[in-house]
C-alpha cells in the first residue's frame, strides 16, 4: 500500500475544500449580505376583496402596506375605509353594527364612519381612505 504523502494530503484537502467552499461559503455569505426583507412600502391602492365578501353590517381589518385599516360595509350597504389604529393609545378599532359606528375596545373611544372622533378619549380622527367599487371588486385608495 502506497504511503499517504504530504502531496496526497494537500490534494485531498484542496478537493474537500472546494466542495466545502460551495456548500458553506456561497449560502451564508449571500444570506448575510442580502438585506433582511424590507418592511412593505405603503401602496397607493389595494384590492381588499369582492363586494360579495362583505356582508352588509360587517367589517374587515386588512393591512394597507404596514398599517392596518378597517374596511366597513355599513348597515345601508355603503363602503368606508379608515386607518384602524385608535388615535388614543394605538389599539385596533372595530365596527359596531348595532351602533353603526367605529369603536375601540380598549377605552371605549368612538368614531363616526367618516373617522371623526365623537366620544371617549381619542384626541384625533382616524384617517379616511377612498373606497372604489368597480367590476364587483372593492379597492381602497389612499386619499390624495
Amino acid at each position, binding site marked *: 500500500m502506497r504511503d499517504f504523502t*504530504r*502531496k496526497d494530503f*494537500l*490534494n485531498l*484537502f*484542496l478537493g474537500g*475544500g*472546494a466542495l*466545502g*467552499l460551495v456548500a*458553506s*461559503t456561497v*449560502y*451564508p*455569505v449571500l*444570506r*448575510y449580505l442580502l*438585506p*433582511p*426583507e*424590507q*418592511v*412593505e412600502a405603503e401602496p397607493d391602492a389595494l384590492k381588499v376583496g369582492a363586494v360579495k365578501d362583505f356582508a352588509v353590517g360587517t367589517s374587515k381589518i386588512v393591512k394597507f402596506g*404596514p398599517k*392596518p385599516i378597517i374596511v366597513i360595509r355599513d348597515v345601508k350597504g355603503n363602503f368606508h375605509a379608515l386607518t384602524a389604529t385608535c388615535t388614543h*393609545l*394605538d*389599539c*385596533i378599532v372595530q365596527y359596531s353594527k348595532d351602533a353603526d359606528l367605529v369603536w375601540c*375596545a*380598549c*377605552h*371605549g*373611544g*368612538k368614531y363616526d364612519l367618516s373617522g371623526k372622533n365623537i*366620544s*371617549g*378619549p381619542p*384626541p*384625533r380622527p382616524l384617517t379616511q381612505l377612498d373606497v372604489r367599487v368597480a367590476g364587483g371588486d372593492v379597492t381602497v385608495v389612499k386619499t390624495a
Partner: protein
Amino acid sequence: MKRLLMALLIAWPAAAFAQSQCVKCHAASDDAKQKAIVKSFASDIHREKGLSCHSCHGGDPAKSDMGEAMNPEAGFTGVPSRADIPKFCGKCHSQPSFMKKYNPSLPVDQELKYSTSVHGQKRKAGDDKVAVCSDCHTAHAIRPAKDPVSSVYAKNIPQTCGRCHADAKLMAPYKIPTDQLAKYTRSVHGKALLEKGDSAAPVCNTCHGNHGAVPPGVADISQVCGMCHVNNAEFFKSSPMAEPWAKRKFHLCATCHTAHDIQHPTTQLLSSENGVCLKCHRPESKQLQVATGIKSELELVESSYAGAEKAILAAEEKGMDMAEARDLWGAARMSMYQARTTVHTFRAQDVAKIADQGIASARKAAQAALDAVTDFRNRRVGLGVATLFISLLVLALYLKMRDIESGS
C-alpha cells in the same frame, strides 16, 4: 379683488376704532390705565368684529366734547359695577338674533348658565368678589377660546381659574382648598396638557363646566369622568362595587383616583400593603385577595409586554424585520389596556381572561424576536466558517504551488 376686499374688511374696524373720539381721548390720557385699555382693546375680538368702545359703554364717539360724548341721556353707561357685568355682557351675548350676525354658532346661554353656577349664585346672594365674565375673559383683551393667547384657551385655563382659586387669601372666606392648581399641574391630565401639549386633555371646565361652573356632585362624577373614560365607568356601574358605593355616597372615581391629583394608575393601587383598597377592606379580606389576583394578572401581562418589546428592539437593532412580531406585540398591548380597564369590573376572572390573551401574544412576539436573533447569529457563524474555509484554502493553494514549484 378678493385680497383687496379682505384687506378692507380687516382695515375697516381698525379705522372706525381709531376714529372714535373715545379712543383719541383715552389714548392721549395721562392715566396709564386708560392708555392700557386702548392698547389692549386693539387686539380684542370685539374690535376685530367692528365694535368699538361705545358698542358696550354707550355714548357718542363722534362728539369731542366730553359732556356730550359721555352723556347718560345719550345712552352712556360707563363702567359697569362688578355685580352688573354678567347683565352688561348679556345685553348682546344673550341675544340670539344679535349674535347671529357675528357668530351664528356661538352659544347664547352663558348668562343663564352663569346664574346657575356657584359664582352666579354667590353673586346673587350679594357676594361682590366672585368671578364675573371679565375675570376669566379679561375686560378689553378678549380673544376667542380657540386662540392660543386667549385667557380661556385650554392651555391657559388652569392659570386663569388658578388666579383666584390658588389664592389662599382670596379663598379664605369660602373655606375651600387652594391646592387644585398645584395638584392639577402634577396630575396625569395636567402633564398631558401642559407638558405634552395635548389639547384634548381635560382642564378645569371639562369637569366643572365653564359658565355654569359647579363642583360635580357624587352622582355626576361618574358621568364627568365617564365622558372620556367610557369603559371604566360602564364596567364600574355593573360591578359588585356599584351598589355599596352608591349607598355610602362615595365619589365613584375620585375615591380611588382622587379628584385633582390624578396620577397614572399603576398596579400599586391594588397592593395589599399600601393600595387604595385598604381604605375600606382589611388586608386579609376576600376582597383583597381578589385585588391581589387582579394585580398579579396585570403585572404578568405588563412584564410579558415589556419583555416582548425588549426582544423586538434587540432584533431590530440587528437589522431584522420585526413587522409581524410588532403586530403580535400590538395585540398584546391592546389586551393589556383592556385588562387594565376591566379592573373596574372587580372580577378577577374577567381580567385574567383578557390578560391571558395578551400574555400569549406577547410570548409569541418575544419568540419571533428571539428566533430572528438566532437566525442573525447563525448567519454570522456561517460567515465565520466560510471565512475560515477560504483562509485554509488559500493556505493549501499556497502550499500546493510550493510543492509544484519544488517538484519541477
